[in-house]
């Protein structure tokens, strides 16, 4: 005990000397706009002769409605199934032959396609991405096969994973009207009823240069990348981008609770509070000061940002009530989102004890400001992580793409650090009091069912 206090003080002294200088200067980033509305953002990184190229479309599952859930993701699959100029499979063959890595991912708020290549081959990526931005073929035969693949993907990622199934249910219960209630991969019955015509309509509606952001990070010269982008993407026609419908969540009027019973070995608990994100602060600065969003970020770190954080310390090591406990919060979501606490009870402990322990942590956040050294430790972690992140070109590009896709400015990624550093213990207490309340809460529990009959294991 004594030793522990002493160590804390030493740690504090180190930090009060100065925070780490946050290492290197912000990387050189340039922004360009093509006449057709395609935005290009280039970040130089000359550590290796490599380039990452990502095309981000402002469309994802949060743009979908009931009946067509999963269409953004299904379309992402079909983007590899041929264009008018390149038949199915040729995209991947050409990227592979130039030594490239490629793939794509779909989220609630974006659909993104990427290649990582030796820098000499950036033009291969641009030529092919430009081609499929407006020239997708969407052959019926390929769709019939590919939608089966998507259903297998759903079985793999969700249906056969009790924890994913519980999270999916929790989202559907937490959100009544927000499109975040739909899973990104879509409900199975929507996938079963999906047609290639649904995909074609979606493609024509959202896939255009003026609804996309091209992000390039690597050993490149921004002006030359702009020239290359103009050559390949410049000829593409822009499209009328439909004004998005308001996709709002109605106000929650009390706590919600849902139980998922499924064959599993481990119970699990998810507590999800509705909280604002950066876009909420932009839209409504009077009621939601931007600082609140960063205070929520610090709050998440304080709870589970590292091994010394509160949940591992109190719930896993001291009370031994949790085997694991983690917080999730993404301040870069497009719509009002969730602050989640997800935990698995320790061997021999029950869900009710775990929930009480989590609620005590929340209560403490509301009643006591965090000690200065704890806040300092959070900041030291965040500052260092900003340096570590620069080891990954891909992650650098992701950050730019995320922000731009939800309508925020990529420059926020460089303001993030100062905003986090400015957060005070009192601000953290304030957001805990304001947002981590029962009226905003959904609790989901996974109650394991035994496997029917004796399995072979």
């Amino acid at each position, binding site marked *: 005990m004594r030793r522990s206090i002493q160590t804390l003080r030493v740690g504090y002294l180190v930090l009060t000397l100065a925070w780490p200088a946050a290492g290197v200067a912000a990387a050189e980033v340039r922004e360009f706009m093509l006449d057709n509305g395609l935005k290009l953002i280039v970040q130089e990184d000359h550590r290796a002769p490599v380039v990452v190229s990502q095309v981000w479309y402002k469309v994802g599952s949060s743009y979908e409605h009931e009946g067509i859930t999963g269409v953004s993701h299904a379309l992402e699959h079909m983007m590899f199934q041929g264009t008018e100029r390149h038949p199915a499979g040729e995209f991947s063959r050409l990227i592979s032959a130039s030594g490239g890595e490629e793939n794509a991912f779909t989220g609630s708020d974006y659909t993104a396609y990427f290649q990582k*290549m030796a820098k000499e081959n950036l033009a291969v990526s641009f030529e092919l991405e430009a081609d499929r931005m407006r020239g997708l073929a969407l052959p019926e035969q390929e769709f019939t096969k590919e939608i089966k693949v998507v259903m297998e993907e759903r079985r793999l990622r969700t249906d056969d994973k009790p924890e994913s199934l519980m999270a999916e249910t929790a989202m559907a219960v937490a959100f009544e009207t927000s499109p975040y209630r739909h899973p990104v991969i879509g409900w199975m019955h929507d996938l079963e009823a999906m047609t290639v015509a649904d995909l074609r309509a979606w493609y024509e509606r959202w896939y255009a240069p003026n609804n996309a952001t091209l992000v390039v990070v690597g050993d490149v010269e921004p002006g030359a990348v702009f020239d290359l982008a103009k050559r390949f993407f410049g000829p593409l026609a822009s499209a009328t981008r439909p004004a998005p419908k308001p996709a709002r969540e109605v106000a929650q009027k009390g706590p919600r609770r849902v139980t998922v019973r499924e064959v599993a070995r481990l119970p699990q608990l998810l507590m999800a509070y509705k909280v604002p994100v950066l876009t909420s602060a932009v839209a409504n600065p009077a009621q939601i000061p931007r600082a609140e969003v960063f205070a929520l970020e610090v709050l998440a770190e304080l709870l589970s940002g590292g091994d010394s954080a509160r949940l591992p310390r109190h719930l896993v090591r001291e009370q031994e009530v949790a085997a694991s406990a983690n917080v999730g919060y993404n301040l870069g979501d497009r719509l009002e989102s969730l602050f989640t606490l997800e935990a698995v009870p320790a061997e021999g402990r029950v869900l009710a004890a775990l929930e009480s322990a989590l609620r005590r942590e929340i209560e403490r956040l509301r009643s006591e400001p965090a000690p200065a050294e704890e806040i*300092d430790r959070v900041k030291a972690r965040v500052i260092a992580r900003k340096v570590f992140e620069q080891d990954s070109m891909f992650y650098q590009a992701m950050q730019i793409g995320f922000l731009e896709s939800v309508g925020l400015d990529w420059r926020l990624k460089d303001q993030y650090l100062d905003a986090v550093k400015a957060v005070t213990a009192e601000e953290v207490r304030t957001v805990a009091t304001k947002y981590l309340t029962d009226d905003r809460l959904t609790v989901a529990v996974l109650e394991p069912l035994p496997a029917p009959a004796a399995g072979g294991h």
Partner: protein
Amino acid sequence: MARRVWLFLALWPVVGFGLPKIETWNTANGARVYFVRAPELPMVDLRVAFDAGSARDQTQWGLAGLTNGMLAEGAGGLTAQTLSERFEATGAQFNNSSGREMASVGLRSLTESPYLERAVETLGLVLQKPDFPAEALERERKLMLTALKQREQEPAAIAEDRFMGVLYHGHPYGSPPHGSAKTLGALNRDDLLAHYRRYYCGRNAVIGLVGDLTRPQAASIAEKLVSALPEGAAAPPLPPAPKIVTPIEIHVLYPSSQTHIWVGRAGLTRLDPDYFPLYLGNHVLGGGGFISRLYKEVREKRGLSYSAYSYFQPMRVAGPFVAGLQTSFEQADQALSVMRETLMKFVADGPSATEMEASVKNIAGGFPLRIDSNDEVIEYLILIGFYGLPLDFLDTYVDRIRAVSLLNIGAAFKGRMDPPDLVTVTVGPKGKPPPGAPAPPLEPAPAGRHH
């Protein structure tokens, strides 16, 4: 016109990019150090790896994992909480892991003073002065039991565990890194201490450092991390992988919607003379992602699975060759047939010249991508050090891939895969009853079967 542009560019050779310059030396107590100076970012990645994975567990399954997991749970008289606060007050990220062969601890830290010094000092305690406190041991044991249950609700993990258990039955690679409920329950503090004292020693260690350090700084850090460990001795060689003489098929009942399929056999060693032909051949077969044969046959042509792949996992002695997929249980038989036929046809006929050329282009052209971050470079340093690969492994990699011929691939695959004595494990809701060969037990055999 655009089309011609890319064709031209795609033909540009990738030459003369900066490969990491590896420096190597030994610490005073015999640990091998591998260092790459990377001054671009003010950070360092470092890792100390030991030949101390579950292959050293004998009948005490889970011992290596529990020992490794306990290192940061109390050291030098400091609690787990204090240790983690010490790391995190400097922004450093501590990591540890324990697999079948290797157990390691590591750190990602800023190089700015005094943050690095403090993080290294704390890692030194974790590595050299672990206390293995009794109450933390009980907690870590319970955490491992929870992790076991987690695996038991994942069809993919059930398939992997069963596959490795059957393929390496009676061999050190057959010991599951996460243990079993029975063996974990029997482990005590003395067992952990014995494992730690035997295997966490200089001659059994490899240290990798990548970052903004000078060589003298790197040398000083390496000494600080391990100088208090005894010199000891390298872990003894492992017995050769067992021979599967007849095909084995096992079905594990699990109420999932998909059946997970693992097919394979013992494959190759890290220093195998056929490493390059087998690696290149498998790139065509199932390692090359979207262009591989398995992917095309299973997914692109038939829509049977989200993923379909094959890989060789090279280890000290022959590690597994695995081909895998997951599919709705109703079509599991069809998918398994497609996979086996694809495999057998490949073993019989090898790749076409076009396929081989496409894979060579991907591997050669994509080589700079593999080593473009400190994160990746340290993986290679540990790999080279742990398995005793030549120091020019990275420098000569592309040339050695290019030197492989169709004949080399054909001969190498025939040598490894003929006769097709494959182990097949399926996990899913229904299926054929397991034919013939009985499934080996899931608990360790009596003590003393190997050492």
